[in-house]
């Protein structure tokens, strides 16, 4: 496993614009996503994650952040359109019972975007 785009420390003040966290100890996966947005273009400048969870949760967080960072960063509008199915497909398929894990990455991202829009 070679996960990418994870945050290996606590974020510094002003480093990101917003964060979103979903999951619980009870369900066995927690994921947190930080975003930095270009306010002019509404494009994603940077995105990082941290995960406590199974391999699928880690892999889906990693691949999701890679997807939205491609080609100089997706627009928020496009990134919000990414569905769990897209993440699973990009990973080469996921077992059905692991599907809820991959849903977490996009949910945490949506929460972060919501927080970002509330600030703006």
């Amino acid at each position: 496993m070679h996960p990418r785009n994870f945050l290996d420390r606590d974020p510094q003040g002003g480093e990101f614009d917003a964060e979103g966290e979903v999951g619980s100890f009870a369900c066995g996966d927690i994921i947190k996503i930080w975003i930095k947005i270009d306010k002019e273009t509404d494009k994603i400048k940077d995105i990082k994650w941290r995960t406590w969870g199974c391999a699928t949760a880690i892999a889906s967080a990693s691949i999701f952040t890679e997807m939205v960072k491609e080609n100089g960063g997706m627009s928020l509008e496009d990134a919000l359109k990414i569905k769990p199915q897209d993440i699973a497909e990009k990973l080469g398929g996921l077992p059905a019972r692991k599907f809820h894990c991959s849903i977490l990455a996009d949910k945490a991202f949506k929460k972060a975007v919501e927080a970002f829009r509330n600030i703006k």
Partner: protein
Amino acid sequence: MDKGVKKAMEPYWTENFGNPNALYKEGLIARNAVETARGDVAKVLGARAKEIIFTNGGTESDNLAILGVAKSGGNFVPLRTDEEGNPTGTKIPSAFRGHIVTTKFEHHAVLNACKQLEKEGFEVTYLDVGKDGVVNPEDVKKALKLETILVSIMYANNEIGTIQPIREIAKVIRNFKKNGRGNFVPLRTDEEGNPTGTKIPSSVFPYFHTDACQTPGYLDLNVERLGVDLLTLNGSKIYGPKGVGLLYVKNGIKLKPILYGGEQEKKLRPGTENVPAIVGLAKALKIADKDKDKESARLVKLRDYFIGKLLSEIPKTVLNGHPTQRLPNNINISILDAEGESIVLYLDEAGIACSTGSACTSESLEPSHVILAIDKPHAYAHGAMRFSLGRSTTKKEIDFVMKVLPDIIKKLRMFSPVNIKI
């Protein structure tokens, strides 16, 4: 699988292929093999050969014991003795829905059989097992009722390896029977749904069943000394073949079968016997029992060395289950802030096979019911790791685990968003 076991099984695939129920020469050879195996198993258990029923595994044996006792309604139950000390009997009404005592951390083969019986109108008490994962015999005593037909408590837990005080529990049950002889037992309902009653001789019930699948090679299996009426064993935990098990059924106990067919295994397990597997199971059990003391002593040393290393060299780790009242081969620790499945996969990459002990990899993705049963929160259950030591495990291998595991945990904690307070 043990090489000696494989060798013992070898002739029964092709050379001696006969059906043990046939009358021709080949059949007799196969029958002889099955009965020799039965005798060997009985010897290890201190039982009689006719008390051994071969099944297709631990799950089936557990089901046969629990459903078989619960549904023995309508059977003639021989009493050991009446007031004058003479053997006697009674007929249990088939509408009788009794009470069963078990624990919260049994194997699912027991838990789910009990849950099914609850749906059918039986009452089940699931005992707490305390923070150490050891049942208190006093709790069993408090749970026993006149309607109790069965107590099913595992000999050692399959996830955290804690050893249960089977002899003490057996004593509690014996005393209960002695004191409650001949009492009136109220039934919930008769066939028409009306409350009714009968006189059930309480010197018969409850029976005591134990799932002992984890224990051969480590603990005493003598059924007389343990004081159990029913005991489950299987092949796969003892370097034997998978898909074969047995149930010890004390002489005089009438079970209702869960499968219907021919007359094999005293009609309790119809179907042609799996001859090579039965031969292998008996051989594996004999080998495990023979080396028991020496191997246990070796593994206890290794186990305690490993636990000591884990707790001292990886911060925020907690041992699950009693530190010494546990199987010599079992280590179960919760590593906080890192999740079990990720640790398993990183260790696998390094060539180390272990398991979460939690069912995170199962269909339900539920955390371990065992870790929750010893009163640990979900965060502990999802980070629970089970390492099992075996005949080939050496100190060198443990040192290798301790070389790679701390770095894996460091890495996983690095990108973990949680920081659990210990």
